[in-house]
């Protein structure tokens, strides 16, 4: 009887999801913003309609999460080959005090010259974080400070919709898989 109960808790099977990232259903439109771009121009998420966008938040002094994530993006773009031209990485700082556009540009170019950074006033960045559900907590470390921040990446499709969320730590292969699917749409 116990054996039957134990087996009865588990029957049939389900389909595996296609994307490696977490998928939103229904997807919502990515909230637009206007920030200072690291390329010297205004940065709006809407200007990348037609491309698939990887949107991440962090700061250039981050020693753990951001270098790994940005390197993953760079490797992913190389894996995609020519299709990488249709993928845009957008990296928004949570640390406007240190991350001025020139510093952002230098930092991002060390990973991939096509990456674009965004900065602005504290209130501008706070509004963007609120709209995207991003946490960023400033922590004092001795005479310095650091941030604990959301480490995931949003995948925004060609129509400007937030389709998926990739948690920190996924491989370039996982990103390439998902970007390939979104680029084919």
């Amino acid at each position, binding site marked *: 009887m*116990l*054996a039957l*109960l*134990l*087996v009865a*808790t*588990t*029957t*049939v*099977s*389900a389909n*595996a*999801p296609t994307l*490696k*990232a*977490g*998928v*939103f*259903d*229904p997807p*919502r439109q990515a909230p637009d913003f206007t920030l200072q771009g690291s390329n010297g121009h205004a940065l709006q998420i809407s200007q990348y309609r037609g491309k698939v966008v990887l949107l991440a938040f962090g700061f250039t002094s981050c020693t753990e999460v951001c270098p790994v994530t940005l390197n993953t993006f760079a490797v992913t773009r190389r894996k995609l080959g020519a299709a990488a031209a249709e993928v845009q990485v957008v990296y928004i700082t949570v640390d406007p005090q240190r991350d001025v556009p020139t510093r952002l540009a230098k930092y991002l170019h060390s990973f991939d010259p096509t990456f674009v950074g965004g900065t602005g006033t504290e209130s501008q960045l706070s509004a963007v974080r609120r709209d*995207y*559900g991003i*946490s960023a*907590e400033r922590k004092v470390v001795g005479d310095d400070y650091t941030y*604990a*921040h*959301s*480490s*995931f990446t949003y995948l925004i499709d060609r129509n400007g919709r937030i389709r998926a*969320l990739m*948690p920190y*730590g996924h491989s370039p292969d996982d990103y390439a898989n998902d970007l390939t699917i979104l680029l084919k749409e």
Partner: protein
Amino acid sequence: MAARHAALWGLAAGSVVALLWVGLLPIETASHDEIFVIPKGTWARRMSGDKVEILPDHIRLTLGVRDVLVLRNHDDVPQIFGPTLMMPGQSFRLPFERAAEYQFACTAHASGQMTIVVDPNPATPWARLIWRARELWRSS
């Protein structure tokens, strides 16, 4: 006396066979989803001072069996749910493919973090037996 011994031996043997059967039978589940839902009215309840906890700060999943976290916001307002912001009526489906411990920033919890432990697939009979026993315990 002999009949009683024979019955006891029969019962013991039957139990062993049943446990072996439970352990050897592959696990196939109706769904891989572990679902958490923010019910309608949650925000209003929170605003009135009711402490509503929906998402535990520790979630246990099992690779290949129940390895997809599903979050659904049935409330009327956007909610930070787990690692993400979810609009009213929106759901979020996050699959896991590696057994590991995952940490997510989650402002909904006092610790500021949510931990998801993904256990390896119960590949051995003993592991399947334990998994089924745990499932039975969960559902009871």
